[in-house]
């Protein structure tokens, strides 16, 4: 329809064909949709749709395979880096990415995350850090901030009894197997452009076979945080970013 209304010379932006036309199930205001789009655009721009295999584990993005028009596998909670290892080892020429939440990557799947990165598996890990378990209804995550309320920390996260929020991205950056580690966000047009550049770099690095690339995206979860999307983005800037500062954490030393 849009094609008929908009003259080709006036067309400035088009949905990438690496995204399907399926209606997304994500809550309005959530960052997942934007993160999906920039990853799909990178795959499109690099012309690697036919050489890319994605892995999305349990979490809000469990249905990511409906939205990315690439071959995809749904993994058990926490196991995506192991599944991706299996794929990349039998297909060393292909591009393999995982797309994981914080509960998945930094709680139940910590061992798989650390060891895939420590082996330097040549995969891209996209890590959506929304500080909460979105899919199961807003329970505390390993990245939930001190004092932050969730359905399993209703009086706020108490460090003494519930432990500390985990900066797993900084941990991964320490490992000799990781090659490029960065923390981004997708809540403003500028940050979206930056995050996309980071994902593109990380995807391109796969061909070098020099190690694991991890792109963390600090994101909101307006429904889990019980805020409007606008409030959630503001809260994220004021509370999440000071603890999870944006920017590159490990850059390749050429």
């Amino acid at each position, binding site marked *: 329809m849009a094609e008929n209304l908009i003259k080709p010379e006036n067309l400035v932006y088009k949905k990438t064909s690496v995204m399907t036309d399926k209606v997304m199930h994500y809550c309005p205001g959530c960052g997942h949709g934007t993160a999906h789009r920039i990853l799909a655009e990178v795959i499109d721009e690099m012309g690697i749709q*036919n050489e890319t295999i994605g892995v999305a584990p349990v979490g809000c993005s469990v249905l990511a395979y409906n939205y990315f028009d690439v*071959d995809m596998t749904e993994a058990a909670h926490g196991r995506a880096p192991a599944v991706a*290892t*299996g794929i990349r*080892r039998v297909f060393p020429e292909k591009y393999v990415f995982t797309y994981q939440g914080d509960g998945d990557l930094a709680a139940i799947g910590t061992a*798989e995350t650390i060891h895939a990165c420590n082996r330097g598996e040549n995969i891209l890990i996209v890590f959506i850090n929304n500080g909460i378990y979105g899919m199961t209804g807003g329970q505390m995550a390993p990245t939930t901030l001190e004092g932050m309320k969730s359905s399993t920390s209703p009086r706020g996260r108490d460090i003494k009894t519930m432990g500390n929020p985990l900066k797993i991205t900084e941990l991964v950056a320490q490992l000799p197997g990781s090659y490029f580690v960065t923390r981004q966000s997708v809540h403003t047009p500028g940050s979206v452009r930056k995050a996309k550049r980071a994902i593109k770099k990380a995807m391109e690095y796969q061909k070098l076979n020099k190690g694991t690339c991890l792109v963390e995206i600090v994101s909101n979860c307006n429904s889990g945080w019980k805020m409007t999307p606008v409030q959630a983005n503001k809260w994220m800037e004021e509370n999440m970013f000071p603890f999870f500062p944006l920017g590159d954490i490990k850059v390749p030393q050429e």
Partner: protein
Amino acid sequence: MKELRLMKGNEALAEAAIRAGADAYFGYPITPQSEVIEYLMAENPAERTGMVVLQAESELAAINMVYGAAGCGKKAMTSSSSPGISLKMEGISYIAGAELPCLIVNVVRGGPGLGTIQPSQSDYFQAVKGGGHGDYKLIVLAPATVQETVDYVKLGFDLAFKYRNPVMILSDGIIGQMMEKVELFEQQARSTEEPEWATVGKKPGRDHVIVTSLQLQSEEQEKVNLRLQAKYREIEKNEVRYETIMTEDAEYLFVAFGSAARITRKAMEMARAKGIKVGLLRPQTLFPYPYEAINKLADQVKGILTVEMNAGQMVEDVRLAVNGKVKVEHFGRFGGMIPNPDEILNALEQKIIGG
């Protein structure tokens, strides 16, 4: 032409995997099967055939690596022993649910818990009745010799791909550790096929492939279950394998699988020497199970003794098969203990003939 070697069960298994054209092995050390990955690493199959061998950080990771590689249409396998197999159960359920082929080897040791490192058959229920969650079935092959271990690697991959279903070789610490003469089959080329259900990278002109076991609508999940059940019925129809020894004139019957069947065979010979007409039925597939064959023999014999290295697991299937026609009893040693032929013969005389 014939290639005969004297080999340890675990090493023969590893050699068979390379020769069967396996694409990938992912494992984690545990006694009594660590020789599998040790042999593979020493053989360097990356050089020999291009096969991937990787020591994972856990059995959990290993089975999920298998899941990833199997989803790519590759011949992928893992091996472990009881506690490690328990850790793999979630992954096995996912693989069964996503209908992917793979080979899983359990060189069983005594349990529960950390148990012993000595041989056992106490994972029969776990292998045959589920183990992981959900209504799924593994095809379960039970070798009794090193030779059968080798042959079942090839057969296991064939069945896995024929039915797109995980296959388990249920071995034990005896078969894994003992050395026997074995005839090796010739090296098979690794497959270059790209099955249409595999994630190999989206091909122009076809939909993207999705490997998943998730259905949000219960109506859809029921359909998946019905499809799986139809497949399991097909497997039951086509793939039952068993061996019968001296059952033609038998008045009594032993039923035993794997190592226990070998020891029971000796007990059978001793009984025959005493004039007791007893035969042996040895299931080679534990799923599908030879219910029909046992049911038929129940019309002929006066009683049946199952001999197992566990506290009585397969005996439940024998009773199902016999359906009350004759007496069925169990004799077992467990916790890593191995029965000897004398006590098996004694159990036959006490529990079946005299009882």
